[in-house]
């Protein structure tokens, strides 16, 4: 075995020594726990779509309310102007 191969072999031994006893069992437990906790793709997609829809509705409602408010105040102003001009015409 040449020095480089010997070093690679030592590297593998050294790395394997970093795994604490019961490694395989811990992996299996973590994989099972993760599988239960992890949301499915469909679940994630539905949640994303619902959030997007909710945002859209909120923005639309806010915009409609704001535009509606502006329109009624403009209409009220015009009505005042119209009334004032009619009064002025009658006065002449």
């Amino acid at each position, binding site marked *: 075995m040449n020095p480089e191969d010997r*070093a690679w072999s*030592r*590297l593998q031994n*050294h790395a394997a020594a970093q*795994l604490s006893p019961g490694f395989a069992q811990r*992996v*299996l437990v973590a994989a099972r726990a993760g599988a239960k906790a992890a949301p499915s793709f469909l679940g994630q997609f539905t949640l994303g779509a619902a959030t997007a829809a909710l945002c859209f509705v909120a923005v639309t409602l806010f915009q409609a309310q704001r535009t509606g408010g502006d329109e009624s105040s403009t209409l009220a102003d015009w009505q005042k102007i119209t009334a004032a001009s009619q009064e002025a015409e009658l006065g002449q």
Partner: protein
Amino acid sequence: MDSSETTALADLVRRAQRGEENAQRELIVSYQRRVAGFVYAMIGRNDAVEDLAQQVFIKMIRALDRLQAPAQFESWLFRLARNTCIDHLRRQKLRRIFLPFAPEHEDVPEPTGAVDSEELDALRHALAQLRPQDRALLALVQEGRSHAEIAVVLKTSVAAVKARLHRAREELREHYQPTHES
């Protein structure tokens, strides 16, 4: 690996794919040493080996049912290991950009005695000088993967693998300077 071993491995993989916990455990026990070696060659830190090896095997268990050819399990597993290590290095790089630490906290050196031989320390140092992709290439070769298998893992041609491997070996030799041990 001879044909009877390949058949036995394919059988074990099929059982693991069906969700047999004993088969999954057997796969982990059989490959944990080699995956740990691969991770250490890629990352070069003791404290990352267990965590990353665990991530590799968790991904293995979750994705096992998508493996079409059980006979190619080894190549597939080392591709998972390579991708996991490269993702880890990328995340580290991003973290350094967004959360820069003070220089003295950036690369905390391994504690004294963390590496038990000068030869190994020299190899670790030499590997650290290479690009992660080249480290992966050398570690895959050391794992006994053929050029054709590596070409599949890296999604490139066999000729490109040979050329890159040649360059990576040259570079490793350039940096690999062990002090002589008896």
